[in-house]
């Protein structure tokens, strides 16, 4: 055990920091759930890619830097620390990218990875279907093989980024007689294909953060299959494993929120301390963000040495999502009468983006597998309790 960064790691951090200081936009971008903001974020992805900072964990030959997980953590720390824009293309970079590298042919990689890296093609995920939610095996959308094509019919929902994205990936039932996890195939579908309709779903803040995608006889070439016909569940699990794992919920995000919360608290300590629960929550935010960081470093160190992520990763999902909720609730409590105001309200003093964050934090315990599903997984697979 050695909790010091190596000289190389320190140099890497310095390099990231320097580039970000020079390149992070001075004005915050508009929300990527708006057309304008989406375009701005796509541009930012291109800029990141120019500096080869877009997909640092990808191999060198694919335009990445072949960073290991510790380097990735360092990159993320610097990224969040710099206040750089949110990644509009995380579905591609963190979910589909690694899946393509594992299951894709050379042709797949050549076709999809470069444009993913530049932000030229932004990916939406197509996991859930209506009435299924966290039950990923309840897939009813069909892909029927016709010669060298599939004909896709059905519907996906809760597809993040789909409103302005270019492509989606998801699993479709290719064996009509199958049920649950069997007979599914992982397919890549361009959102501008004839027969695709994207129906925005406005979220709590009124912006279309996700969408329904309708497939009406959508024709997709068999080349768009990843990992082979009827093998979709395995491919999807590898993708979802990443999602549930550490790649998407970088500790840096929560550490920065905790830091901002401490600042907010210190700036309002006298009024905040009228409610002792606030000081407690602030302390808790710092500690939990720290524990989450330490835990991630432990996992990263273990994976670098050849370890595997197990069902204990479900504890992560619960921990960060509840942390995020409670940090934002604490901020709302500190803000008091200002908490309900949007930042452009004249009377809103020092509210920052806390209200946005508060609303977004409500989704944390729901998406990427509800926390109830995660608790089932922990109980059954980690603790070995009897199935229902």
């Amino acid at each position, binding site marked *: 055990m050695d909790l010091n960064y190596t000289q190389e790691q320190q140099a890497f951090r310095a390099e990231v920091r320097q580039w970000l200081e020079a390149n992070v936009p001075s004005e915050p971008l508009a929300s990527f759930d708006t057309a304008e903001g989406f375009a701005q974020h796509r541009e930012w992805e291109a800029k990141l890619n120019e500096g080869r900072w877009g997909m640092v964990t990808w191999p060198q030959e694919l335009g990445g830097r072949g960073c290991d997980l510790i380097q990735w953590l360092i990159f993320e720390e610097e990224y969040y620390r710099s206040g750089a824009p949110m990644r509009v293309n995380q579905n591609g970079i963190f979910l589909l990218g690694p899946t393509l590298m594992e299951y894709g042919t050379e042709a797949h990689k050549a076709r999809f990875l470069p444009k993913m890296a530049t932000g030229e093609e932004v990916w939406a995920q197509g996991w859930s279907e209506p009435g299924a939610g966290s039950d990923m095996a309840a897939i009813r959308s069909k892909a029927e093989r016709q010669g060298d094509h599939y004909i896709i019919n059905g519907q996906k929902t809760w597809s993040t980024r789909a409103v302005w994205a270019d492509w989606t990936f998801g699993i479709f039932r290719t064996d009509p007689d199958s049920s649950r996890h069997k007979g599914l195939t992982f397919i890549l579908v361009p959102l501008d294909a004839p027969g695709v309709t994207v129906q925005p*779903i406005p979220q709590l803040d*009124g912006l279309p953060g996700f969408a329904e995608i309708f497939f009406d006889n959508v024709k997709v070439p068999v080349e768009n299959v990843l990992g082979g016909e009827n093998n979709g569940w395995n491919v999807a699990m590898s993708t979802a494993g990443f999602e549930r794992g550490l790649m998407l919920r970088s500790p840096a995000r929560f550490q920065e929120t905790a830091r901002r919360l401490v600042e907010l608290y210190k700036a309002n300590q006298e009024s905040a301390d*009228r409610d002792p629960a606030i000081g407690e929550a602030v302390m808790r935010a710092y500690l939990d963000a720290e524990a989450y960081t330490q835990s991630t470093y432990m996992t990263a160190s273990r994976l670098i040495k050849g370890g595997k992520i197990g069902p204990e990763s479900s504890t992560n999902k619960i921990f960060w999502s509840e942390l995020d909720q409670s940090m934002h609730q604490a901020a709302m*409590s500190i803000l008091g009468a200002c908490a309900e105001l949007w930042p452009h309200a004249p009377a809103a003093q020092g509210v920052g983006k806390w209200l946005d964050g508060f609303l977004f934090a*409500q989704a944390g315990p*729901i998406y990427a597998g509800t926390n*109830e599903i995660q608790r089932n997984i922990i109980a059954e697979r980690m603790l070995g309790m009897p199935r229902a």
Partner: protein
Amino acid sequence: MDFTFNDDQLMFRDSVKAFLTNEMTPEHIRSLWDTDSGRSPEFWPKLAELGLTAMTVPEQYGGLGMNALDFVLLAQECGYAAMPGVLVETALVAIPLIAELDDAHEGFKQDWLPQIAEGSARVAVAHPDNLLVADAHMADLLLLAHNGEVHGVPAVDVTLEANPSVDPSRRLFSVQWTPSDATKLADAETGALLWQNAFNRGALGVAAQQLGLAKRMMDVTVDYTYERKQFGKPVGSFQAVKHMMADVAVKVEFARPPLIKAAYDIANGEASAALAVSHAKLVASEAVRAAAKNGIQAHGAMGYTWEVDLQIFMKAGWAMDASYGDQGTHKVRIKSAILAEGAALGAGASF
């Protein structure tokens, strides 16, 4: 000792509930969100017709002479319906504040109270402990604070600036105005007591509405757990979902007695009113937070959408949370009461 409402009180509550169920549907609320004022011109007259604007106006000014206890069940129903506007604040804060002015302002009372009772005039209250003024844009009269004094200013003499809230139903304003002897209704000494009473009544009103909102979130969520299916079963049949709603039910169930006790104490001028109000407000706020958190969780992703009605009630509950004192304000009052030398605690000290 009788801790029940009488039949009249319960019947009036039922009729207001029925009225709001029909008139103030989620669809209607959403349609109001898209209007400039956020208010329907036909609605206030209907409230007046039901007697709601006259409830707490003393009889000599054309009102029904009812008190906070008579009104508290109605305030809960206004919350349950997420009724936009300031009926509750009018009945519990503005009207009693005017009625409590001293005899030197008898003319002012005669000018305004009958009009308010019949619904032809509206009042907004700029309580000094609140940041902004709700529904100032609909008011004919504003009650304003200046160095602890109470002032009454006609709408024509103020300038408003809108402050958008997370709850699109809620219309909040900063008010620019100039105090003068002509607008002064109470000096700082009298004002201190008036504003203090107004604060307790305002907090009671918010608590009542929040409790109604918590109950509504619970009800719409329970309904939704029949609709939403996972693994082939309604999510409401999963024990985890049941228990998260049961936890809300416990909070709602035990937030109700303190609310009623607070209303009773205010109506009867009990010395325990401030403590009772702070208790009621704190637990109502907690009920809202729990109902929102567990409500959205039981809804799953739908709970995070604009489409599902839950958002109407969550946002209303969140938005009014710090109005008439945030949790910290009320915790301070509670603690100082129970830690006071000689505080009456323990068995037999409740009533």
